């Protein structure tokens, strides 16, 4: 029966109804708690089938309900025994962890956070750029979202926030090609600190847009974080076209074809800066989609569409969009009110479609929790680039209102504890606490809380491995996030889990003693006389290139 269902699921590709029916049958089959049966399902390679489906679904329509159902089915399958999960993890870890990280990164809350951070960064950079510099033609800029610091090689200009969108620097806006991205991603993880160039990548198309920069660097920053830059997430051809239609239904200009045919995804503004995402986005009209006789041009259009999908225009609210710079946009393009309204609605749809389905995010966290229970998976997971950052972010998500109230309650409680010095009042405080805890326990577990629970449980498991203890403590932001959960979380179990994490981390001898403040190391580093010039000279100086290192946050 299971074999038949899995075969059906594997073969169900089109139409969508067929896929949905196969998936529904699979979910009904997998939804049980029989460990041995789940082992058998894994033996029948249900994990790999579902992984393929999820990969495809994530690429094509990540917000679709199908995505959530697939993740749901996969979570069910992984309710197997630890030994079998370990075996499965060993087989799929190289593929599944990058996918999961990307899925988490493309959750709606995460994207908004990244965009906010990107906006902040751009504001800071704009403010910084207003000051005179000795050398303005910088080769790269370090951008930061969360705890990632990646350096692009060329092409970033002040105020161009689109490169920040993924929490990483996207080398150039027009770099998107599905095969290119997938290859780049794979090679990224395996080949650190080496620029990856087109000619080193087999399977790439012969010609790429000239301004595509495929140089990615993994670099070491003062606080020791691995830095790896990912190119933007690829999108399927169909979705790209669809997105384009939704985004730009009314723009038609003969110049578009002319511009597109040049094969460049970025346009040059009057001031000479590149503004490729938005311009390319605005210049593509639906009537022109697929109308190019030349396949090369067609592919380049796809590249451009993909850039648009990744660009801030699709995500940022309208008021934050960058103004068009080219003369034709400023003078000739005046959309009607209706068109604007429909545009706004469609933009909302597009925005929504660009995020990973919420259920899928929850289930991915659950699967990660299952993986983290496996001894052999603890170390690879903790050291996988980006995974801890996504977990940290999940720890910080709160359902608005609940956490604030809880925080107030807990602060009041702690204040009461401070004021009441005598032992009797301590008892009274405890009794008040118990009443409050009863009230709190009645609160339902919202999605954010469920995600947080799975996340902190995953971190608990990761912290069990000796090799991970130092790594976890020193990972920027993780310790703070765990402390925050321990102190303020509304859920009792979350606080309990956080206390286990703290206990596990405190078990490591190296962690017990106060580790040297990273800011101190930083200061010592930058105070070295040999580096003085390097630091202080313009935008290439270290202080310029690492403007957002959260060194203060780790200062003990």
């Amino acid at each position, binding site marked *: 029966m299971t074999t038949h269902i899995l075969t059906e699921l594997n073969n169900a590709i089109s139409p969508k109804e067929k896929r949905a029916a196969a998936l529904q049958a699979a979910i009904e089959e997998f939804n049980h708690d029989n460990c041995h049966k789940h082992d058998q399902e894994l033996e029948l390679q249900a994990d790999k089938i579902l992984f393929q489906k999820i990969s495809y679904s994530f690429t094509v329509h990540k917000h679709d309900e199908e995505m959530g159902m697939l993740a749901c089915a996969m979570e069910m399958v992984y309710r197997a025994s630890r030994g079998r999960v370990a075996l499965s993890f060993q087989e799929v870890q190289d593929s599944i962890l990058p996918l999961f990280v990307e899925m988490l990164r493309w959750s709606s809350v995460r994207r908004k956070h990244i965009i906010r951070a990107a906006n902040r960064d751009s504001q800071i950079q704009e403010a910084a750029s207003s000051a005179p510099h000795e050398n303005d033609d910088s080769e790269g800029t370090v951008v930061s979202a969360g705890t990632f610091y990646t350096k692009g090689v060329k092409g970033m200009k002040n105020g161009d926030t689109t490169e920040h969108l993924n929490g990483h620097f996207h080398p150039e806006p027009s770099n998107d090609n599905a095969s290119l991205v997938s290859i780049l991603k794979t090679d990224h993880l395996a080949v650190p600190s080496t620029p990856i160039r087109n000619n080193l990548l087999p399977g790439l198309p012969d010609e790429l847009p000239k301004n595509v920069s495929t140089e990615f660097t993994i670099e070491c920053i003062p606080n020791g974080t691995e830095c790896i830059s990912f190119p933007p997430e690829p999108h399927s051809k169909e979705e790209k076209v669809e997105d384009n239609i939704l985004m730009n239904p009314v723009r038609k200009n003969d110049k578009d074809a002319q511009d597109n045919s040049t094969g460049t995804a970025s346009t040059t503004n009057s001031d000479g800066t590149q503004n490729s995402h938005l311009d390319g986005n605005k210049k593509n009209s639906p009537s022109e989609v697929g109308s190019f006789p030349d396949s090369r041009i067609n592919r380049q259009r796809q590249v451009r569409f993909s850039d648009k999908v990744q660009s801030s225009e699709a995500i940022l609210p309208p008021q934050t969009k960058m103004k068009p710079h080219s003369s034709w946009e400023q003078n000739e393009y005046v959309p009607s009110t209706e068109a604007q309204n429909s545009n706004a609605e469609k933009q909302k749809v597009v925005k929504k479609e660009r995020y990973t389905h919420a259920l899928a995010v929850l289930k991915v966290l659950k699967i990660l929790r299952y993986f983290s229970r496996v001894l052999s998976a603890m170390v690879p997971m903790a050291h996988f680039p980006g995974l801890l950052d996504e977990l940290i972010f999940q720890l910080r998500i709160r359902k608005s209102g609940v956490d604030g109230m809880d925080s107030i309650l807990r602060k009041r409680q702690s204040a009461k504890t401070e004021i009441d010095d005598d032992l009797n009042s*301590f008892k009274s405080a405890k009794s008040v606490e118990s009443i409050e805890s009863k009230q709190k326990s009645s609160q339902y577990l919202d999605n954010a809380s469920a995600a947080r629970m799975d996340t902190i449980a995953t971190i608990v498991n990761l912290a069990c491995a000796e090799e991970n203890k130092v790594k976890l403590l020193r990972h920027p932001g993780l310790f703070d996030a765990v402390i925050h959960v321990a102190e303020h979380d509304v859920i009792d179990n979350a606080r*309990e889990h956080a206390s286990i994490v703290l206990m596990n981390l405190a078990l490591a001898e190296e962690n017990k003693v106060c580790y040297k403040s990273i800011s101190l190391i930083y200061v010592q580093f930058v105070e070295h006389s040999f580096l003085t010039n390097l630091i202080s000279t313009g935008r290439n100086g270290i202080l310029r290139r690492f403007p957002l290192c959260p060194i203060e946050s780790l200062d*003990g």
Partner: protein
Amino acid sequence: MASYDDFLYALLNLLTDEVINTRRYASSTILNLVGTPKNTHRIASFGKGKLLHVLTRVLALDDVEEVRINVAETFFNLVKNSTDLRTIELIGRHRDALSSLASTVISDYSADVRAYSGRTLEWLAADIHFGSQSHPGLLDALMEASQWTKTNCIAEALKAQASMEENRISMVERPGMLDTLSSLAALHGVNDEEVRECALAAIERLTNEPYVRKAMAMHEGIMTELTRATFSTNNILDQYEEHDKVTRTLMKSALKNLANEI
């Protein structure tokens, strides 16, 4: 980790969390941290003694035995691993720490908690002496904890205090101290031999101080215990003293010291 303020503040909250397991893990965490000598002063002084205060209260009041054991062991490690006398002084000067330890020694139903608390007082007695602001508090705590005679921790602590010349006058002048010593010396249980020996050793060392001999000679309990063996009604040494030459030597030595005052 111990250098991280937010972390220690979080531990403060977790130690009083309503969830039992959370308190267990938090207490275990802090126990792990004080296992490192470098952290002891940091933890004892954190938040102007807030952490110490919470630990004291948890030790006295927490319902969960494991939490209290962890905290008692934390206190023990704090004192034992401390290389900085300021840490000892911080604990000694805390308003409730010594009294809580003493009351725990005699009242806690967990043998481990009692043992760790008693050993903590013993280690404190080795470091706190006359001249310290916390010395009177320590003597009071030792007197209170002396009711615990299952182990010889407290008696050893008194002996250690009496070994230091500068402590002797303050000990004898402390109300109740001679009563405490005499009651410990009066123990004749099967398992009290070590405690009695320690008490008699403390008495003997106190008699080495000329200024306190008169007060000791005037004390009924002390004189009774010192003279009991020698002048027992049947003129036979106590059965527990027959083989205890050390005790007899101590008693005789003490009596010799007090002879001029008798």
